[in-house]
Every structure is written in structure tokens, then in C-alpha cells.
């Protein structure tokens, strides 16, 4: 069925081709990371850099451990 879909979809224009290529490149990056078991920078590590600090402090502020 996917082959059937592939045959009837239209040609992509330059925008779609660019985005498609970029997405494929990113997935190749992740595939190599997975296959080689290398610990490259992925989504959550990027996330960690940005706002792990504030998030953790909010969490620490709000949580209550029963004594």
C-alpha cells in the first residue's frame, strides 16, 4: 500500500525537498547514534542544557516529603 501511495503522490517542490532532506539527515544522525551505541547529543541533552536548572529548582520547591 505504501508503494501504491508513493506512485500516486505528486512531485515535491524545493521547500518540501529541503525539509525532507533535513529530516532524513537528522534521522541518519540518530540511526548512527543508535547503531553504534555512541552517546551523541540528542533531544533531551539539548533540553538539559537549556532549562534543566529552573525545572529542577521548581520541582524541588514544590515537592513535599513527608517527614
Amino acid at each position, binding site marked *: 500500500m505504501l508503494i501504491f*501511495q508513493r506512485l*500516486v*503522490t*505528486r512531485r*515535491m*517542490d524545493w*521547500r*518540501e525537498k*529541503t*525539509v*525532507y532532506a533535513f*529530516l*532524513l539527515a*537528522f*534521522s541518519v544522525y*540518530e*540511526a548512527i*547514534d*543508535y547503531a553504534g551505541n555512541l*552517546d551523541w547529543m*540528542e*533531544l*533531551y541533552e*539539548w*533540553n538539559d542544557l537549556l*532549562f*534543566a536548572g*529552573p*525545572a*529542577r529548582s*521548581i*520541582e524541588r520547591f*514544590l*515537592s*513535599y516529603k*513527608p517527614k
Partner: protein
Amino acid sequence: MMEKKAAVPISAFQMSLLLFAFMTGSAIINIPGPIISEAFGGAWISLLFSGAAGLLLLGCLLFLHRAEPDLSYVECSKKALGTAVTFALSVMTVPFLLHIVTGIVIDVGLFMNSSMLRETPNTVFNLAIFAIAALTARAGIEVMARMFALILMLIIPLTVIVLALAIPNYQFANLLPVFPYGWRPIWHGAYSSFGFPFEEIFVFGMLLKYTRKEDRTFLGRSLAKGFSSCILFLILSTLCTLMLFGPLAPIKKYSLFELARIIEAFEIIQRIESVIGMSLIAGSYMKESIALFVLAHFVSDLFKLKDARAIMMPLALIGFLNSLVSYDSNTEWIEIVNVMHPLWAFGGFTLPLLLTAALIGIKRRRSGARASGSADSSG
């Protein structure tokens, strides 16, 4: 079949069904366990608060929809804030959408791994769910609305029956005390449950433009009804969990599953947790396909692509690989969901939405004042 590109609009009732499916889809697995561990006996009060905040967000979305009925959130935002600011804001939003897309499947994989099919590697579950979610998202919103109505008709009665079958085991005394440690746990629970699942209603900003024109007047009412029934459903399952397990509730992560394990009725109906497991997976599948659909449309609206279906498969592939490779250990995943998720949701979803809504509101008021001013001066 594929040449008919024009998106067929769906009715308001179908839109509210989609809302219900999206909200309850993966919330039923993951809530109420974490909320009870944070808010103890007052978990249902936290849900009430976060539900109210969620309704405010829904109001924002509907305001946006009424101002610009045929534009999706991204197009609205480009119009109100400008393309550059939209791109800057979506630096937080698009990765968060990707996080939602992978997070749902990671949760399913972890769930299957811990309870039902323990020895199968997570890869299989992730691949299966991504494959059908991608195919469903590709089929379009009308097919999704039709399918999910049928699936919901199966899942909701099943869940209610399971909750009802456990009645002999409920102990109402377990519901108290409601505020054992003051108000802070309640706020904690509210903060957490607002992050997941109520803040994710933002994705419907991309979907509301597909409503039928005749139904646009009572869309708000239908959506509010759907959202409220979701809140009630979650509160119901939280209460049932509290009544059943009492203080031990937070120990087991998947509470509805454990509830189903305990049921023993008529000597034949025992250990029916696999049935609940199946319905949980169906709910997650529904949420996943909507999330994938929204992600594809978000990216395609951002870059002004003609057809979002062109990038749906690569996005599914990225989601699949992300679900395998992005988190290093279970503990890290738990931290991401409990700690990072609410703040990320705020920065990626709520903040841009509020900004866009505020700017559109100001513009309308200014143009309204100008129009009424000119009307005054002329008439």
C-alpha cells in the same frame, strides 16, 4: 484515492471526540500514579485546579479560532507576531512536539515491558505503534475522527465496566485525609497534571480549522463538554485508585492496570488486566496519531509546504529513532516526564499561545475601536 487532497471537514462532535481521545489516550496509563505520589489524598483537587487552567487555555484557543477561523495556530502566529518571532518561538515548540510524539510511544513500550510482554525488546513495540500511527495520520483527519469514534465506543465502556467491577474492593475510608500536609502538595499535583496532559490541548490549535463551517458556532460548547468529560473521567479513575489502594497507591506506577489485576468477579472474570492493557494501548495509539498529524502540519505550516503528508513518514522515522536512542536510562526518563515536561510545555506551548492570543486581541480591539470611532464620527 490520494489525489483528493482537499481536507474533508469534520463536525464539532467529532472534534470533541478527538479532544477526548487525545486527552485521555495516554493519561489513563500514566495518571493518577504520579499525581497521587505528589499530592496524596488531594490528587483529585489538583486535577480540578489543573483542569480549570486547561479550560482557560481552551478558551484561548477558541478565541484564536473565532478571530481567524481558517488559519491554523502557526499561520495565526505568523500573522500576529511575524515570521521571525514565530520561528524563534517554535525553537521550543517543535522539539516539544517531537518529545510528545516520542514520549507516548516510549510510555507504551515501558508499559508493555513491565507488565504484559516482558521479554520483547522495546524496539518492536515502538516500531509497530509508529507504523500504524503514521499510516493513520497520513489518512487524514476525517478518517481519524471516524476511527477514533469507534475505538472510543469500545474503550470507554470497557474502562467503566472495569472500574465498576472493582466496587467490592473499594474502601471509602481510604479517600481521607485529603490535605494531610497542607496545600503545597496540591499545587505540586496541579503543576504536574497541568503539564501533562492538560497543557497539550495546544495541539488543537492546529486542528480547529478543520471544523465544518456550519458547526463553528457551537464548537466551543462541544469542546468544553469534551474537555470536562475528560477531567471527570480522570478524576473518577483517581478516586477509584485512591479508594482501592489508599496510601499504597503511588507504589505501583500503572494504577488502572493494577486495579484490573485485583478484580475477581463471577469466578470467570479474573486477571483481566490484559484487556485494560489493550485499551490503554489503543488510547495511546490515538493520541500518537493525532500528535504525529499535528507535528507534520506544524512543520509544514512553518515552512509553507504544500502538503504535510510529504514529511509525515520522515517525522515518524525520526520519532522512532528518537524513542530508541534519546534517553539513557529509565530514571532519566522519569525525570524528564516529571521534572522537565511541565516547564517545557509552558515555554513551548502556553507562552507562545498566550502571546499570539494577546496580540490578536489587541489588534482586534484597536481595529474595533477604529471602526467604531469612524462609525461615530461618520454617523
